């Protein structure tokens, strides 16, 4: 079931948009892996309004590295979860919020991070998801997806390569589609169309 799209026009250009846009929001196959691995027990997908905390201003909850100044990510709305099997809003924040993780990193970064999280952030308490990757002998050319941060214990770097399985690809595909910030008109439900007339009536 989906929320009814509401059309709205950009105030400056007059261009028409709709929220929710009606496009498939996420990569569903990957969400299944997200659930199976239990990512939702440490990561939330729910950004709260400022009256409940200032986390929406965190650069690492929004589009880290893409903007110069601190910029506020909007709080999540119900339309952001359209087309999902289940909204994994989360339990506790052991790791950062993932509502907008699709903006923050490249696919390669995600694969390397999933394989060995501490190689990207030494303070991380995330477990390694090595079981989603396979180590295989290089035959001919190296795979484009081969990871470059294989641990020293993996030995013989030249002969072997570590490549993601289908599950890992699906999971990263899902993470890359997590962009819960579709613009909307900003109109509050039930608010009168023309505010001026409302003022006059008083």
């Amino acid at each position: 079931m989906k929320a009814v799209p509401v059309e709205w026009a950009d105030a400056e250009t007059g261009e028409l948009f709709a929220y929710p846009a009606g496009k498939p929001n996420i990569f569903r196959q990957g969400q299944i892996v997200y659930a199976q691995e239990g990512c939702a027990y440490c990561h939330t997908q729910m950004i709260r309004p400022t009256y409940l905390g200032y986390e929406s201003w965190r650069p690492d909850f929004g589009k880290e590295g893409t903007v110069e100044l601190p910029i506020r990510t909007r709080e999540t709305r119900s339309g952001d979860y359209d087309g999902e099997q289940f909204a994994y809003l989360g339990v506790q924040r052991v790791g950062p919020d993932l509502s907008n993780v699709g903006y923050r990193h490249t696919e390669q970064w995600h694969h390397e991070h999933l394989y060995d999280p501490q190689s990207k952030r030494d303070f991380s308490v995330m477990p390694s998801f090595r079981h989603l990757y396979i180590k295989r002998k290089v035959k001919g050319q190296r795979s484009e997806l081969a990871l470059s941060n294989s641990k020293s214990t993996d030995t013989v770097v030249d002969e072997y390569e570590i490549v993601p399985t289908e599950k890992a690809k699906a999971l990263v595909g899902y993470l890359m589609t997590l962009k819960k910030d579709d613009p909307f008109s900003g109109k509050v439900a039930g608010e009168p169309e023309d505010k001026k007339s409302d003022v006059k009536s008083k």
Partner: protein
Amino acid sequence: MPEEKEAQEDIQRRAAIDGSARFPVLFFITSAAVWLTLAAILGFVQQMKLHSPGFLDFSFLHFLNYGRSNPAFMGALVYGWAIQAGVGVGIWIMARLCRAEVKNPVTLIVAGHFWNLGVLIGVLGILFGHGTSIEWLAFPKAVWPILCGAFSLIVIWLVTMFHRRQDKEVYISVWYILGACFWFPWIFITANLFIHIFPGSAVAKAATNAWFMGSMIYLVLAPIGLASAYYIIPKVIGRPVHSAQLGYYGFWGLAVFGGWTGIQKFMGGPLPAWMPAVSGAAVIIMLIPVLIVTVNQIMTIKGKSIEVNSSPAVRFTVAGISFFVIYCVFSALNSFLTVGKFTQLSFTSLGTQLLAVYGFFSMTIFGAIYFIVPRLTGTEWPSLKRINSHFMLSIYAMGTLLVMHLFGGVWQSTAYGKFDAPLENAISAGKPYAIGGSVAWAVIVFATLGFLMNLVSILSRSGRSEIVSKFVKYIGGQENSG
């Protein structure tokens, strides 16, 4: 003398009831205890993983990653231990209070086997990567019809027992147990249908899940725990419940408001704001029935501190009720936006669940088990020392978990609120508290192993058989009552 004859008949009747209840009750209690041990070990592993992912980090043990061991642990704790032990204790209390024998214990045991099978498939399913990551419903989808069918089979026999009751009076414990018997299938089926079967918006499913957890605590665990408390305390103290009427008010308060709770967990989330608001209000109103229950219990044990201290059953029960009060006050505080914003989405949310399931429910049920099992086996607990250490260690561990989860959660979310600080600060803020939590879990594992050993040795009848309970004899210096 007619009075003596009556008393003799009464004892014989009670022995017959105990004999009929013996196998199903012992079956449920023993398998629950095994699940508790498993849950405690998984609990320790998941807590260790929370702060040091290097713990047991072998490739072949990837199924112990936090994301899998945490839901597996919760599943084993709630479905393997809590509900199963609750059913065992519930059958016995029903049989005793309705003065009806358990007809058809075989069906109960068969249902129990299916329940255990369901939980086993569920826990293994989560560990081997088929979990759903839905809190308290993380078992693979296919499991819930098994659990539901098994529970319904058990409920049918409890209800027929109620129909065959020979005692005209319906005691407050019976109300609570019958309530839980009907509420569990209701909320379990509703939650599963709306989450797994019916189409619906993703956010509504998340809200259903939050409602399910709130209702499980207030409408299933709370009634069974309170039923046990309402039975054990008056029985051991030797004095009726202070006020039956207060008891009924408490019951109806729970029945009316219990089903509205849960969604306050997602306040500020992508839901219509009235949903968390209504749930939050219900949790706050729940303080009234809780106050009623507490006053009733306090008035019952008033001035009987010797009995409370000398009977392990009552000691555990009183501790459980105290944790229940703490849980309710704490949840009510969390329902206010001003407090909840510091505790929501942090360690605290898991801490409150543990407070309800381990602090309140398990402690109360331990009390009931320490009371019931000697009456079913006809032997006394082999080691009083082990019971006492179980009590002290459980209190200590639960207290530590409470502090770690509460302060850890506030610390953690405050750190995330400092938006211009680096991510490292926020992640390391919770770490010390997670380490503290694993100390508590190590203690729980130790205490649970002691409990299991005690239970196994009383079942194998290696315990000393004494006709008069040593706990009663201890008080019995001045009065010689049984």
